[in-house]
């Protein structure tokens, strides 16, 4: 009665083999490595790049373990960190700025394992060290900016349609347009509803003036926010690339947040500095009529002319700029440092996109001889980067900024402009930094507590339940291996709470075997034959095991959906562990029991610890 058909044994053997294959990559450890990936789309990853890197390293006599190419770039493995550091410098200077050269750790597992996609578990930041940031996009500010831009549109429409309005202002939540009388206003509403359909228009009478309050339609608002978020994510990706981090993560979280994870980053201050730089660029006209010393003096004392803003440059020179923003950073498609063709001065070359080009062309045509200011807006403060005089109309969207810049400054400004093309400012609202030594400590502590706990548990169960205890321990080991294998296969992130979950799950998984073993003992006490006791024990315990595991699973799933960061790691391990434990504790352990006892005709006594006390005392 206690026999498994062959296919059930095959499943068990298959699962164990798969478990072993996917678990062993975790035991090979990792080597210091370098990852070379292209920074610009022009830079290619091909055999030639690989050869070039190999040649560079060979020339410097740096010993290399292995070098290969994959879809992300070229990876080179080194013997030790010294060689890795030397290698990085060599490659970086040899390849130039088109490639990111990042330090990394690569698994040492043999190629046949890697080709099976058998990789070691993906360690979370709390285990490998690194930085995690949660950034919030300032949506009110993005919407405010959109309103400013719609205000320009409305002005343009009314001008070209010859609608006469007396005043247009941008408020906290709406754009207000004032008219002399109702008929003018009603006519304006009709036109605007067709020509500028992104807005909702409401009419009002206030203090003798006829008013239109225009609000951005909710669906448009949503689109603007989505766009702002996407733009920020793209910008962050570029910034992170400039940092040279292997395997960075930049992804959306919720409707207005971005998660950035930089594994292995040691200089967190620099990372924060570059990520936290929430600069945006604005192109504005200098109000040349008010740039006389008297007006500037007055403005500095607080009497700023209406329609103007007082902004200083780095040296402290004041400028009065018109409030109207001609272009924002999101119209810049590229910024590169370089040199002026005629004077050979360091310069920054900007490329504008289509709409940006035409706006810029129009503005420069109308403002020859005047100054255009490039303003860098950081969270809360603005700074004039440069305010060159327009010498001629600029077409084609190629703009050059030059004048009193060093090469480094040109480089920095270009980087800032390129990366600074943010649609809305962002703020770091959560930071988790784990130093590399703490990460290593955490791994050690986590594994130590799991192993010691497991050993103690195994010893106790084996002694308490004798042969059946040993079988239970075997099942528990299979469970642990399958858990490690599934985690490696899914490349789920393992965190310190995750390791704790492994320990906890193992401690809870033994429950199934305890239930079964106790049940078999009970059946024996009731006078059932050993074979029947095994069957009844497994059968009766199964319903209980199922019920109790499902309730635990409910808790695990809820934890997964409501948890964040390391808690998710805990939940993932917990849920997978419950599933693997049901397989190993019931199916695998029964298989072993059947294999040992199933073929025997007569069994005098089951080796399940002492249950004879009951009979003897009867």
């Amino acid at each position: 009665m206690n026999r498994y058909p062959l296919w059930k044994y095959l499943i068990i053997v298959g699962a164990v083999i798969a478990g072993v294959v996917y678990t062993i990559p975790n035991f090979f450890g990792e080597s210091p490595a370098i990852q070379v990936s292209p920074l610009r789309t022009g830079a290619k990853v091909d055999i030639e790049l690989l050869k070039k890197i190999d040649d560079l390293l060979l020339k410097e006599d740096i010993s290399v373990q292995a070098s290969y190419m994959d879809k992300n770039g070229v990876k080179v493995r080194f013997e030790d960190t010294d060689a890795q550091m030397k290698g990085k410098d060599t490659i970086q200077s040899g390849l130039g700025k088109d490639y990111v050269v990042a330090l990394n750790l690569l698994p040492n597992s043999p190629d046949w394992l890697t080709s099976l996609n058998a990789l070691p578990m993906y360690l979370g930041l709390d285990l490998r060290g690194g930085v995690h940031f949660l950034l919030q996009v300032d949506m009110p500010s993005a919407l405010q900016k959109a309103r400013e831009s719609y205000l320009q549109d409305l002005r343009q429409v009314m001008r070209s349609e010859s609608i006469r309005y007396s005043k247009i202002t941008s408020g906290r939540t709406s754009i207000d347009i004032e008219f002399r009388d109702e008929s003018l206003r009603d006519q304006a509403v009709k036109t605007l509803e067709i020509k500028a359909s992104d807005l909702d228009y409401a009419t009002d009478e206030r203090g003798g003036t006829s008013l239109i309050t225009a609000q951005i339609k909710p669906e448009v608002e949503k689109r603007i926010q989505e766009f702002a978020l996407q733009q920020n994510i793209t910008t962050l990706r570029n910034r992170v690339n400039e940092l040279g981090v292997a395997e960075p993560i930049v992804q959306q979280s919720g409707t207005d947040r971005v998660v950035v994870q930089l594994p292995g980053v040691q200089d967190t201050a620099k990372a924060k500095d570059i990520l936290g730089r929430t600069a945006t660029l604005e192109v504005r006209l200098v109000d040349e009529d008010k740039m006389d010393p008297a007006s500037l003096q007055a403005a500095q004392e607080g009497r700023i002319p209406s329609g103007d803003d007082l902004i200083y440059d780095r040296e402290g020179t004041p400028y009065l700029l018109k409030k109207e923003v001609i272009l924002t950073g999101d119209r810049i498609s590229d910024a590169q440092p370089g040199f002026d063709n005629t004077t050979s001065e360091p310069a920054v070359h900007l490329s504008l996109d289509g709409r940006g080009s035409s706006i810029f062309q129009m503005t420069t045509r109308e403002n020859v001889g005047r100054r255009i200011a490039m303003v860098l807006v950081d969270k809360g403060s603005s700074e004039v980067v440069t305010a060159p005089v327009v010498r001629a109309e600029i077409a084609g969207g190629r703009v050059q900024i030059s004048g009193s810049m060093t090469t480094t400054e040109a480089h920095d400004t270009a980087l800032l402009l390129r990366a600074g093309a943010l649609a809305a400012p962002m703020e770091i609202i959560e930071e988790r930094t784990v130093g590399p030594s703490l990460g290593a400590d955490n791994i050690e502590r986590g594994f130590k507590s799991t192993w010691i706990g497991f050993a103690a548990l195994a010893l106790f169960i084996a002694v308490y339940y004798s042969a059946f205890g040993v079988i239970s321990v075997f099942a528990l080991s299979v469970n642990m291996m399958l858990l490690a294998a599934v985690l490696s296969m899914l490349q789920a992130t393992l965190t310190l709470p995750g390791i704790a979950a492994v320990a906890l799950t193992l401690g809870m998984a033994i429950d199934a075997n305890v239930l079964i073993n106790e049940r078999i003992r009970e059946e024996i006490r009731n006078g059932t034959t050993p074979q029947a006791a095994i069957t009844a024990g497994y059968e009766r315990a199964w319903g209980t095991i199922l019920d109790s595991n499902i309730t635990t699973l409910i808790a695990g799933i809820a934890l997964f959906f409501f948890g964040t960061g390391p808690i998710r790691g805990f939940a993932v391990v917990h849920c997978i562990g419950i599933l693997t434990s049901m397989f190993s504790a019931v199916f695998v352990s029964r298989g072993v029991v059947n294999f040992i006892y199933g073929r025997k005709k007569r069994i005098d006594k089951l080796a399940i610890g002492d249950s004879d006390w009951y009979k003897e005392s009867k």
Partner: protein
Amino acid sequence: MEFFKIRKDIPFMRHALVFNVLSIIMFSLAAGALTFKGLNLGVEFTGGTVMEVGYSQSADLTKIRDSLESGGMSEAIVQSFGDSRTVLIRLPTKPEITGAKLSDQVFLLLKEDDSQLELRRVDYVGSQVGEELVEKGALALLVVSLGIVIYLAFRFEWKFGLAAILANLHDVVIILGFFALFQWEFSLPVLAAVLAILGYSVNESVVVFDRIRENFRRMRKAEVPEVINNAITRIMGRTIITHGSTQLMVLSILIFGGETLHYFALALTIGILFGIYSSIFVASPLILWLGISREDLIKPEVKKEEAVV
């Protein structure tokens, strides 16, 4: 080896009332501690900055406090963490400095006194994130509770579901009570432990209930309290062995898992101990009070799953 050689059923239910009173007293104490002392919420929930720094030698806490004070950070709480060389610094959110920058400033300040200083960990949480986490945590607790009641109502009967969840919320409140009473830090891993206990402890009640249901079928003539007594007595062995095994693992985390997991393991320990207590002395009397009867379970003839054979 066998520890529990019990022949006669232990009359647990005869003293049901005593245990109920005991439970109510403990529950009230825990609830009182929660109300009057409140939880010492970790930085994840309150917002703020926590830094862990490692010195090359034994750290001088007074000196660290002095340098922080001179740097204008007198609100900083400085304490040693795990060993004498590791120091934990807590900083409340400052409106004028972006939280992420605050930790850089503090680190630079402390590095002036010891150039070997190592930054081991920084956790900065903005206040809005903290509020969200409190909300999410409460929501998770609610969803888990509801999910379990629904499942048990479906598998057993609503009385079982209700009894199980009351017994387990009793455990949760008592764990929280301990954290409030001793002002242990309630962090995100502790919340995970509490939720895990909720699932684990229900597991325990389910095992008891399963036996009660089976007994209703087997012991046709017995009174309800007898049925319950027999069920609890029969599974005593497995209860102690299972929880002992789980506790063995948790103990190992408590001893070797380091500071980060300390309170996590502590919460689990309390949860496991009270989980045993509550499923025997709270859940079972509760179903007795809720008036469980043989008909509740037997009539619709719940079909049992096939065993794996």
